[in-house]
């Protein structure tokens, strides 16, 4: 190989920097070329400068940090990039939902009163979670020994559920008539809920792939004509397990 052209050098250096897991120094980049390729440090510096200029207006930049050069995501687009690592929310426990419901309908109410109605202890974590979410707050204290806190719901609670006031909460009579047959809302049926939650955007993609994986189109000599009957486990199941 003879002396390398500037543009070819640029292509290589860009690829090398984007494939490297960490920043590369001028010396490290230079070491990738043979003697015949004759790549000097001044030339490399010019290449790097040119690559930096190419990043103008783009979502990434070629930055020089202590240990060398690296491509990095520009700060102003980071918020979108960060959304990639948003964890899918889990599910609140039934105990939490019951506690929240009792606070909403029986406020102001103490923890002991909630426990009395529910018949079980209310964990501090539940109250803490509800307070952190700013759905409930302490509205006062009951004048009994220990001065227990009285909990009530907040404006944020009303806002989240699109209510103008607590008036708009369904009456208890209406609640009694709520149809709780819908499986995905039945709290007993934890699996159904999980399945619904899991059906995020990534699963769409998985389904697409399943369609792509059509076996052997156009090949007439498949030895397994009855595959449809023979396959016991469906595609979706395995995808699910892998996820």
């Amino acid at each position, binding site marked *: *190989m003879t002396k390398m052209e500037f543009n070819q050098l640029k292509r290589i250096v860009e*690829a090398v920097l984007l*494939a490297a*897991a960490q920043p590369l120094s001028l010396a490290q980049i230079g070491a990738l070329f043979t003697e015949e390729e004759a790549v000097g440090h001044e030339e490399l510096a010019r290449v790097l400068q040119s690559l930096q200029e190419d990043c103008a207006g783009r979502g*990434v930049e070629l930055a020089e940090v202590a240990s060398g050069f*690296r*491509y*990095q*995501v520009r700060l102003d687009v*980071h918020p979108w*990039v*960060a*959304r990639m*690592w*948003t*964890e*899918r*929310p*889990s*599910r*609140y426990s*039934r105990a939490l*939902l*019951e506690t*929240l*419901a*009792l606070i*909403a*309908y*029986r*406020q*102001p109410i103490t923890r002991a009163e909630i426990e009395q*109605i*529910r*018949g079980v202890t209310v964990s501090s974590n539940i109250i803490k979670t509800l307070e952190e979410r700013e759905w409930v707050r*302490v*509205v*006062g*204290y*009951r*004048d*009994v020994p220990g*001065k227990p806190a*009285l909990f*009530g*719901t907040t404006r944020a609670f009303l806002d989240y*559920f699109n209510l103008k*006031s*607590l*008036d708009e909460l*369904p009456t*208890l*009579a209406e*609640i*009694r008539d*709520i149809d*709780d047959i819908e499986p995905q*809302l039945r*709290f007993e049926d934890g699996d159904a809920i999980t399945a619904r939650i899991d059906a995020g955007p990534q699963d769409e993609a998985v389904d697409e792939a399943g369609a792509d994986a059509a076996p052997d189109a156009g090949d007439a*000599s498949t030895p397994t004509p009855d595959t449809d009957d023979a396959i016991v486990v469906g595609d979706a199941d395995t995808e699910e397990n892998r996820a």
Partner: protein
Amino acid sequence: MSTEPAEVSAADAPHGVFAPVPQQQEMPLAVVKGQPVLEMPQDLYIPPDALEVILDAFEGPLDLLLYLIRRQNLDILDIPVAEITRQYMDYIEMMRELRLELAAEYLVMAAILAEIKSRLLLPRPPAEEGAEEDPRAELVRRLQEYERFKKAAEDIDALPRMERDTSPAQAYVADRNVIRLPPPVEMKELLLALKDVLRRAELFGHHAVKREALSVRQRMGDVLKTLGDGVFHRFESLFDVSEGRLGVVVTFLALLELAKEQLIEIVQEAPLAPIYLKALATADDQDGIQPTEAHR
């Protein structure tokens, strides 16, 4: 870009003790003691270590057969069974003599070849000429089937692939922390939770049938919050006339309810004197010292 390691090509490979290089560009079959083996030796003498390599180089009897056929540029559809069988048997025999571990499949193939050969040798009645299937047909089908996947494997190997031919391009991201979103809750879930807990508490049957004045409860909370500072507030200051008559009534009911639940204290020192209210308990109330206020 001579970046690839220098390749040993058939042309410049030394060939001494082994058979002459065939015309077609054949790559070394094996390298034994630094010497490339360019062709399967034609005579019966094969250095033992070379044979081992050769045997390793074959992916089974079909592969060996294919090799024997292709080496001679023969059409797979028209195999001279007798000759191929003889060559095949030679290899098998050599392997046995050298006590190489021979996969059973090789012997099965030997039997198949022998059977085909014998069927071809048998004279067939002229009447049935053409009607009977060629005894080689099944073997030919298998050979072809194997060969197409042997070729497919080479094709797949030739596809540009990660690591060998390309690498993912990635940029550095300053903050890869995972964002955790709070779980969503639907109103219906909340109601079902309530329904459930109320059913358990058997509250439906007793006194929960009537429509609850929920706004009174909300107002109770609001009043308590106002009184949360622990000081006395004038009764009138708790009302907002702009809310109209209904608002006043709701506040009044809330005050009565709070008094009934012993959450507030209502004080009037003399008839028609100002009424003051304060919460019976507050957060900074734990030591029992009531804050004193001037306007009392």
